[in-house]
């Protein structure tokens, strides 16, 4: 008697575990009133330099902190710590991206109520981080002018998963003959209507505009949260 094969229908998201943790993180962040921003880019695009600058400047007005992911070394955490903000390194070992559970365990012992902004710097990688929700409010993708204008076309998935594109090292644009028109066209091709901001952590160009953008997005998120609370209060059920 030969065994019979039959088909069982299931419907299970492979990344279910990550999504469950990410959703719980997002709820925790919203309850604590902390605005969470993640950064993704290729290695060397300038995430850490921009983040150091951002932490240093935002710290004057807000309570800020950062988590930074790398396969090895605590070098980036050491750089970011120069901003005097609380910083924690996540060492992923061989894993090429951050997952929600890594963020969750890195936050153990932190009181999120004491924060206004939390930044999460992902591992330098334009492929794998796109699949993993970290519970962030805003995902920034950086491309530096030295990488060429076609990065968005080569890595459409990550650009599509991000909310904002930053063109970094803009102070070097002329030296490397960066074509901003082509770069913008490529970004818009893979993510129509995406906000694009030029920044240079080194010269400071565009940094104030970037910080304004972060402040306004945080305010908008807080306004939404407040109106939801008001609605819940008016109609408890």
């Amino acid at each position: 008697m030969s065994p019979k094969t039959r088909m069982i229908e299931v419907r299970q998201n492979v990344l279910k575990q990550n999504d469950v943790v990410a959703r719980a993180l997002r709820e925790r962040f919203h309850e604590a009133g902390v605005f969470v921003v993640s950064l993704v880019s290729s290695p060397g695009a300038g995430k850490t330099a921009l983040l150091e600058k951002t932490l240093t400047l935002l710290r004057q007005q807000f309570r800020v902190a950062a988590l930074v992911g790398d396969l090895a070394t605590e070098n980036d955490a050491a750089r970011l710590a120069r901003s005097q903000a609380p910083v924690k390194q996540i060492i992923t070992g061989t894993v090429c991206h951050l997952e929600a559970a890594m963020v969750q365990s890195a936050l153990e012992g932190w009181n999120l109520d004491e924060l206004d902004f939390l930044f999460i710097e992902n591992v330098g990688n334009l492929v794998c981080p796109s699949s993993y929700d970290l519970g962030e409010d805003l995902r920034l993708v950086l491309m530096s002018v030295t990488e060429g204008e076609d990065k968005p076309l080569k890595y459409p998935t990550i650009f599509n998963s991000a909310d904002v594109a930053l063109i970094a090292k803009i102070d070097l644009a002329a030296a490397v003959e960066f074509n901003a028109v082509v770069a913008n066209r490529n970004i818009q091709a893979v993510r129509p209507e995406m906000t694009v901001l030029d920044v240079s952590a080194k010269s400071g160009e565009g940094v104030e505009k970037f910080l304004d953008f972060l402040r306004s997005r945080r305010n908008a998120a807080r306004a939404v949260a407040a109106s939801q609370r008001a609605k819940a209060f008016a109609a408890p059920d």
Partner: protein
Amino acid sequence: MHELSIAMSIVDLAQEEADRRGGVQIKAVHLRLGLLSGVVKDALLSSYEMACEDTPLQGSRLVVEEVPVLIFCRQCDAQRPVHSTQMFCCSECGTPTGEVVQGKELLVVGLEVED
């Protein structure tokens, strides 16, 4: 290259389902894979074989159905295929849109089993 960890999640998930249904033997796992999932089919297929080693799923197949990207076109007021993942516009009328309605799936949808 995160396909190996994805493949291991697929194996775990499939085995859990099989256990819940009284320990059936899995012959194949059917997966819907969106073109915007960030997972590469070929890398996933070879990772799957590795992930199955020394598990009850050893020797099973992974059957991948690739899911095209659909966007919602406001101009057409309908779901349409995207022109390409390098060009997010409606394949019918050419209007650019970032409203993705399908293509990010990474779903186990079926198990071929033997009792």
